[in-house]
Structures are given as C-alpha cells and as structure tokens.
C-alpha cells in the first residue's frame, strides 16, 4: 500500500465529498418506485382490458366468454388488493429491487425523526389526499367537474401532497423528487390556458394516465439516471484501487 496516499492522499476536499455523493446516490435509487408504478400500470391495463372484453362478450351474448372474463377480472382485482397491502406487495417489490440492485449492494438513509415521532401527520395528510381524490371522482361522475378539467382540478391537491411528501421524507429523497409534481402542475397550467394537449374519445383516459403514471415514470427514470452519475462519481472518489495504483 502506498503510504504517501494515507488518508488525505493530497485531496481531502475530494474525500469530503464522499458523503455528499453517497447521499445523492441513495436518494435517487428509484427502481422500487419505478417497479411500483409499472406494476400498477400493468394492473390498470389488465383491469381496463378485461372489463372491455367482458363488455364485448356480454353485448354479443357469449355468456361463456363473459363469465371467463369476469373470472379473470376477479383474479386481477384480488392480485391488485394483494399488491396494495404494504406487507405483501411491499415485500414482493423489495425482492425485485434487491435482485435488480444485487450488483450494487444495499444502502439505507436514516428515517427522519419527524416521521418516527410524528407519523400521525403523515396519516392525516394521506387521509386528506384520499378524501380529495374520492370527492373529485364523485363530482366528476355526477358531472359537476367537466372531464377536461379533471387533471387541473386534481393538481390542486396532488401537487401540494407530492410537495408535502418530499418535504416530509427529506433527506431520504432528493430534489429530483420535485420533478413529478412540477410536471403535473405544468400539465395542469397548459390545460387551463388551452394548449392542445388533451386526448378525446376513447383515448381520453390518457388525460389522467399520462400525468400520473407517465410523468411518474419519467421522473423515476431521470432519478435513476442521476443515481448512475452519482454512483460513478462516488466510485471515482472512493475507489481504493486508484490509491493503490
């Protein structure tokens, strides 16, 4: 071992950056979030698809096909419930994540004291958010909210909730987590000012799906790319190989 490199190896300022890049890397390990979004996107497609096929079968009075699709629908719904329970779905996502990160190992940031001591604040915020979703969906179904304004109205509660989540979980999550609410808000503003970004007819479901899942996946992918950059920066700073060479 080269003793001239002991500890400081002439670049203590660089070594002092190791905690910064370690934290940035850990904050942007977004694969669990991406796996979660992709699983729920697949559920959304499966539920929509089977409902559509069951409806077609009923219209053509093919009762065998209809009941078969209803059976599939029940199975998909049961699986969705399974994934929605944190203890079950969370464990499954953890296993996938561990496999995907197996070559990089595992790293955990400290849970902030405010979450450990005041978890009730998170529960209240979550309950308010869920109430807002249910209320706006109900108002949309009864025709009080025009379908083209569902996304901008949802932005009124989604954006503050996502910003709250960032604030609440910091420093476990980094600034890139604000990309999702920013894109969601920008989309809502563009809809309100009349930029032609709305889908119509049978594609109108994309008006909500793109801002929720699309921007979520985009933000997750950008976070993942940033974690690759942070990892390479961290390896440059911390690799002992270079010290020994």
């Amino acid at each position, binding site marked *: *071992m080269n003793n001239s*490199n*002991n*500890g*400081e*190896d002439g670049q*203590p300022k660089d*070594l*002092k950056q*190791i*905690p*910064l890049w*370690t*934290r940035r890397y*850990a904050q942007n390990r977004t694969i669990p979030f991406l796996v979660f979004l992709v699983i729920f996107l697949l559920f959304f497609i499966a539920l929509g698809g089977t409902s559509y096929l069951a409806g077609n079968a009923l219209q053509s009075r093919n009762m065998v096909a209809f009941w078969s699709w209803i059976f599939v629908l029940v199975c998909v719904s049961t699986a969705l419930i399974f994934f929605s329970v944190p203890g079950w779905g969370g464990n499954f996502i953890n296993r996938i994540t*561990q496999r995907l990160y*197996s*070559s*990089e*190992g*595992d*790293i*955990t*940031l*400290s*849970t902030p004291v405010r979450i450990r001591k005041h978890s009730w604040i998170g529960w209240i915020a979550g309950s308010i958010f869920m109430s807002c979703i249910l209320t706006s969906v109900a108002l949309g179904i009864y025709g009080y909210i025009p379908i083209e304004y569902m996304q901008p109205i949802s932005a009124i509660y989604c954006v503050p909730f996502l910003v709250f989540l960032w604030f609440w979980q910091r420093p476990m999550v980094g600034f890139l987590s604000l990309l999702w609410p920013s894109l969601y808000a920008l989309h809502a503003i563009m809809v309100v000012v009349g930029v032609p970004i709305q889908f119509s007819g049978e594609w109108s479901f994309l008006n909500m799906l793109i801002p929720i899942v699309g921007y979520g996946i985009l933000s997750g992918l950008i976070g993942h790319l940033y974690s690759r950059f942070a990892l390479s920066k*961290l*390896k440059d700073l*911390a*690799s*002992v*190989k270079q*010290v020994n060479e």
Partner: protein
Amino acid sequence: MMENLDLIIHEPARLRIMMILSSVDKADFNFLLSILEMTKGNLSSHIAQLEKAGYVNVLKSFNGKIPHTSYHLAENGRIALLEYWDTLDKIRNLGLRI
C-alpha cells in the same frame, strides 16, 4: 500535531469506509465492496479493525435464508471522524502558514 492523528482512520480504505457510512444509516458489505473496489478479505479485515475500535457497528440479518451483513457508523466513530478531519485541517493550515 501528527501524533494526534487517529491512525485507525488515517488508513485510506478505512477513511473511505467511514466517510461512506457517515452519510447513511447503514450500508451493506456488497455496497462497500462495489464502491471501494477491494477484495472481500481486505474489506473484511478493515471493517474488523473499525469494529474493534468501536467505530462501526455490524448488523447481521437474513434476507429469506441468505445472511445479510450491514454496517452502521457508531457514535464513537462519528466523533472520531470529526476529530480526525479537524486535526488534519489544522495540520494542513500549519503547512500553508509555513
């Protein structure tokens, strides 16, 4: 001044291990191995010295049936690391003044 430097931390690999652990709650063996690019035996030996000095806590658990080892910077380690940088900065400043 040099004699005040903590020689356990002053070794490059151990200093890097402690710097990584200082910013997180815990990191596992594979993570440290992939970042530091050391051999398993070498890393184990450095961590054993840090553990012996009371600077690092070893957390053993199981992922299903597979044993999993993580490391956490102990409070003693955090204080020692701060003191190490403090001493090193003083030495550097001394050199600049000379």
